[in-house]
């Protein structure tokens, strides 16, 4: 595990998809008018004959992808997460999920990582995809996992939704970290609190755990890259050993990681206080940058610390962390 500020990489996904396509002739790439933004300009340059411009027509693109998969191809479909899930939900349900076809839907720019306003923020994509039968849902945390996720999902027999951060991708894990699809992973052990994080929330979760540890609060941080199927055994093992369970997701608290963990705990009869960090049933407005939105809507390292501090009944001021730079230095990623 590396320490912040994290170095960043550009286009780890785009390079990984090209690597897979070099090995496998069945890989096709579809893009919904966001080719450079979804890193598949790399694929288009190397395999133009296997690249399909879907244009701004997500419904049609999903329908075509389903039929291509039916014919034995492995289509990877690219757009922003919000357009990949809200607009063509019925098409994904009927043309991809119901027939259980191996289409890979890659949605970039998760949650409030964009200043593009509510129209561009995928705050419900995990919930929408999670509710569909046959669908696997993945939200990886860093560049090391992003490099591995393409190969990890290649042979899943059914459809997969992957949400990916856009732009500079932090390198949090060491190079020998292995992404295991369907498995949650304890990345930092603790005894008081189990803090489950997915995607972009791993970095602030680690920072919060570090700060709390300095003040006598021992926090387990569990990275949950596969939200469906949830690694219930790992969730229950971690949740059963602490006084407080916290989930952290760059998404609505309804229907995503927090809901999945709550369902697993409740069905197992595991009674333990639970706090869900995420967008609290609201759209997110007003920003120039993601850090502002993470702060405004309670997704920051400070918000994590304060939530855990008060839930444990601690008195006095919560541990402070330096505010994240509004604009990270180029090539450097600080938890927001």
């Amino acid at each position, binding site marked *: 595990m590396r320490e912040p500020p994290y170095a960043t990489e550009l286009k780890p996904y785009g390079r990984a998809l090209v690597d897979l396509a070099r090995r496998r002739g069945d890989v096709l790439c579809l893009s919904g008018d966001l080719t450079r933004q979804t890193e598949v300009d790399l694929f288009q340059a190397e395999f133009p004959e296997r690249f399909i411009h879907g*244009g701004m027509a997500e*419904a049609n693109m*999903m*329908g*075509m992808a389903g039929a*291509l998969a*039916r014919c034995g191809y492995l289509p990877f479909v690219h757009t922003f997460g919000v357009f990949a899930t809200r607009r063509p939900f*019925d*098409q994904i349900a009927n*043309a991809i999920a119901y027939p259980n076809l191996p289409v890979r839907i890659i949605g970039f720019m998760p949650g409030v990582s964009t200043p593009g306003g509510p129209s561009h923020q995928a705050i419900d994509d995990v919930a929408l995809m999670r509710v569909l039968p046959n669908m696997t849902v993945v939200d990886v945390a860093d560049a090391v996992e992003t490099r591995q996720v393409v190969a990890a999902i290649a042979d899943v027999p059914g459809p997969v939704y992957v949400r990916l951060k856009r732009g500079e991708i932090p390198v949090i894990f060491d190079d020998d970290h292995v992404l295991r699809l369907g498995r949650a992973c304890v990345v930092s052990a603790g005894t008081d609190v189990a803090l489950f994080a997915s995607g972009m929330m791993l970095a602030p979760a680690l920072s919060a755990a570090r700060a709390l540890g300095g003040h006598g609060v021992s926090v387990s941080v569990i990275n949950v890259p596969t939200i469906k199927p949830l690694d219930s055994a790992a969730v229950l093992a971690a949740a059963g050993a602490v006084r407080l369970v916290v989930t952290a997701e760059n998404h609505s608290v309804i229907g995503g990681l927090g809901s999945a963990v709550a369902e697993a705990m409740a069905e197992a009869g595991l009674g333990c206080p639970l706090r869900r960090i995420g967008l609290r049933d609201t759209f997110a407005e007003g920003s120039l940058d993601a850090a502002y939105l993470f702060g405004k809507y309670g997704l920051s390292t400070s918000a994590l610390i304060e939530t855990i501090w008060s839930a444990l009944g601690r008195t006095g001021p919560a541990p402070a962390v330096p505010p994240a730079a509004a604009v990270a230095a180029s090539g450097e990623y600080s938890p927001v």
Partner: protein
Amino acid sequence: MSPTLHVSDPGIRWTVADPRELALRIRLRAVQMVAPQGFGYLGQALSSAEQVAAAFATARPGVDRLVCSPAHYIIGPFAAAAELGLLDVSGYGQNGSAFEAIGTERSPVVDYTCGSLGQGLSAALGFALADRFRGSDARIFTMVSDGELEEGQVWEAALFAAHHRLDALVVLLDANNSQVDGPVDTITTIEPIAAKWSAFGWHAVDVDGHDVDALGAALAAAAAERGRPSVLVCRTSTRHGLDCLPPNADGHFIKLTPDLARAAISELTAKLEALRA
């Protein structure tokens, strides 16, 4: 007789001696399929019988594909397959049957159907792209209904198909002027239909959808078309070929009382005997 057979399955065989007779038998079979329930999508079979017969008469078994975008129309391909000896459709529409009245993923005969309207043409495009990648010359016969033209996805697909010059596609567009809330032209103005497709870059023609000779000629012309997908705007009626239907029959979902079913079977059987005589 496998319930999972599809038009494009290698090794499948059928022949259509007379598409006019097949259309009549599709009507009769559809009445027999709907009669046990007393209601169903008989109007769709009546308006599309000649299109289905023409598609089966033209398509190469085991090579070409059949897509049924409006899954309510699945009764037509089921009836045709039964009449061609490809499968037994008994149990259609009943609890536990694989032959659901609105087509599903399990529906045999067609290569694709989708109960949520407006989606089938996109799947046909995916098939056309896959066939192009593989160097196959398969043609894709795609049933689309006029009501589906109200769905935006149809036009997304129409733009894509023309841009990519997917000339393997031929759409049989059933313009029966019927949707759930009433005649299509009282709900939304979709005319001029052929001019819209032409403007989108398609080879588009208006055809009498109950004239099997005209349909056969139009399908042949579509097959000769290079660089453009084709659409046949088939002008039809949900009551065509069944004179005993009451004038107020709801074409989208016809009620078929036992008396009416007996009359319909009697009428269509007599017409079939007359045709064969």
